[in-house]
């Protein structure tokens, strides 16, 4: 029995150690014509954002969530009201990633209030897409800590595909010391194609209107995954422990998408158990064509309306102090 256990464990450890370079080398060979360079034709929002974040502290509002978040809360609108904000929303960010990010930055940013956007489609997501987004991003500072955070995220997805991505990228970065071109922002904005990264974590799309004729969504349900709910609970507990105000929100989406959820009422009821929850699909009446640019995201017209109402709500809730103007 002992012999079996020791031998099996030993073989497993040796294979696991050999696996890392073998996998990375195989990937490098297969990826010879990799698209790394052309990645820079795209706006690497996550990379820019977390290379910029260290410049911020003692902010008024911290925005957390998915692309609905980083495409909805415009720091320029908040700044007009004298509010200093930062948006850590990233593509398909789930409660799991939000937890790691909040846990890491909450003390440094020291926000008066956290606006936590919860998108129903991501509440039962394992978070692979967002984790791969982080893994493929290169950060200037605290690289070891970032690597550890990325690994923790990858492990939480329980998906070998995601873990493999981490192995490959970590091997490139730390063993081969491959120099990565890191996308950062020096001026107030960085423009690539039809999108502009605005300092503070917002991404603005050139004004476009949503063509409804392309959308034929099938009715679905709002599923609350055990893992995501566990991370949401942890995050809320952390914010409560630190005495930070938080508002759970659901960013407006086109009615075609919103109405496709059969059981949204139940979802609202469940989420409300975790704190004040404002569903802006109900609080704010927007026009599907005029206020959105695609089936998920607000255009700048919609952003302006949404942000104005949110500021009003936050003052009413007294989460960011009293309104002084």
């Amino acid at each position, binding site marked *: 029995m002992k012999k079996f256990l020791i031998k099996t464990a030993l073989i497993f450890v040796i294979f696991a150690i050999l696996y890392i370079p073998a996998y990375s080398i195989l990937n490098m060979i297969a990826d010879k014509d990799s698209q790394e360079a052309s990645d820079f034709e795209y706006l690497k929002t996550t990379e820019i954002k977390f290379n910029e974040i260290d410049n911020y502290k003692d902010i008024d509002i911290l925005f957390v969530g998915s692309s609905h978040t980083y495409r909805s809360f415009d720091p320029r609108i908040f700044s007009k009201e004298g509010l200093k904000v930062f948006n850590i929303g990233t593509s398909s960010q789930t409660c799991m990633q939000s937890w790691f990010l909040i846990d890491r930055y909450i003390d440094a940013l020291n926000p008066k209030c956290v606006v936590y956007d919860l998108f129903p489609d991501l509440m039962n997501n394992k978070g692979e897409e967002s984790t791969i987004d982080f893994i493929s991003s290169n950060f200037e500072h605290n690289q070891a800590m970032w690597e550890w955070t990325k690994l923790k995220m990858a492990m939480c997805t*329980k998906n*070998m595909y995601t873990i493999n991505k981490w192995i490959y990228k970590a091997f490139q970065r730390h063993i081969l010391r491959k120099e990565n071109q890191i996308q950062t922002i020096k001026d107030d904005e960085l423009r690539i194609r039809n999108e502009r990264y605005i300092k503070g974590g917002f991404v603005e799309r050139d004004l476009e209107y949503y063509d409804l004729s392309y959308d034929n969504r099938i009715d679905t349900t709002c599923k609350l995954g055990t893992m995501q709910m566990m991370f949401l609970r942890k995050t809320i507990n952390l914010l409560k422990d630190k005495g930070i105000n938080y508002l759970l929100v659901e960013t407006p989406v086109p009615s075609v998408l919103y109405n496709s959820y059969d059981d949204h009422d139940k979802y609202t009821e469940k989420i409300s158990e975790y704190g004040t929850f404002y569903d802006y699909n109900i609080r704010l009446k927007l026009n599907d064509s005029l206020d959105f640019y695609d089936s998920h995201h607000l255009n700048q017209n919609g952003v302006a309306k949404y942000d104005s109402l949110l500021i009003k709500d936050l003052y009413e809730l007294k989460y960011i102090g009293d309104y002084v103007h």
Partner: protein
Amino acid sequence: MLFNSFEFAIFLPITFILYWLVFNRNLKLQNAFIVAVSYLFYGWWDWRFLILIAFTTFCSYTSGIFIDKANQKSQNKKAKIISATNITINLLILGVFKYYNFFVTSFADAFSAFGITLETTTLNIILPVGISFYTFQALSYSIDVYRRKIEASHDIIAFFAFVSFFPQLVAGPIERATNLLPQFTQKRSFDYSTAVDGCRQILWGLFKKIVVADNCATTCNQIFATYADQPASMLMVGALLFTFQIYGDFSGYSDIAIGTAKLFGIKLMRNFNIPYFSRDIAEFWRRWHISLTTWFRDYIYIPLGGSRVTKAKVVRNTLIIFLLSGLWHGANWTFVIWGAYHALLFLPLILLGKNRKYTHTIAEGKHIPSIKEFAMMLITFLLVVVGWIFFRAETIGDAWHYICGLCSLNTFKASYLFFTSTKNFAGIFVIVMLAVEWWQRSKEHGLGELHTSLKRPIFRCLLYFFLFFSILAFQTSDSIQFLYFQF
């Protein structure tokens, strides 16, 4: 809990260590531990259905005792009634959870064909994972007790362990009480070589599931989803990929189950024996899902008279078991047609008395088959592939259109899927799987008794590392559930 999940990778070593190091002193305690971890394993998916397993197990356990008592007093009628009651209860549960909606809608459809519209109510029922497997296992026990093939178990813990033993609980092999139950009543001791063989079998099963089946599934699913737009060449690729997907998936699961059981000192029956190297359909059915095929043979076909009756009755018996086998796989007419298709292929062989022509290992003692053997294997294989189209399609109409598409003229028209799937190594993995299984065809599994085939340890190590590497490196982005869970 899935065998190819992180949870299982943690669950298995912990369970194994506790089983041998903590609970090995007392057999009852060890069996109770097996029941507990098996319920945890199943409850990980949905704990509510544990009640259903417990109920099925309890019914079979108590009915076994009463049948045995009646048998001892020669009260045959009483024994028959108890056995029939237990069978009815189990089949009712299976019927409600698996077939209720199917029969209701089929009934309504049949009436609507005559212009009569029936108001029907379907239920929103979740199909409990593995219900067909554990129900059949429990049924076989009470039938065997009734037939006096086995004495009723009076050890409730051992009996619960027999029905719920986690490696084979959700997707078989469907064990017989005569084989498995006595193993829970005897003291088990750790055997090094059995455990090592179990690990090898798990490794091979994981390779077949994660590397072969899941990689085949990625492209196969796309082809079946868009079959109307695909040229015949891609439809052929889709059908072939599904053929290997279902084999890799199901036989992979069986290998993992049997290998895991070996780690716990339990020997389960073989479920697959290189079925795609069969020379005719009869041989295929002796090698595919052996535990289900033999179940139908022993509990339905033989009681109906088997093949020792008039030819008309042989036809009837054969049709019954194939149609039931089809229906067992799922509540859909596509499965029934799949069963009927195989019955039609099987009938000529049994009527001509040629159904047991090939019982020995193919090309025994040779490296490659003869041209005749190869041709027979190829024909059988292609016939099986056509059957899988019915099995995989959503509706009979879809299957028919798929087959029509296969026979269309645009055979070699290029398809976007062909270009988008260049990074899919499914074809290479299928070749590796077939090569290893051919090479090891006289062994219990793909890596069985490897030291006799690969004498140098370094080559064995390299093969193990290749499999280990492939399992980790070539996982698809979405973890795909085992196909047979739905049955």
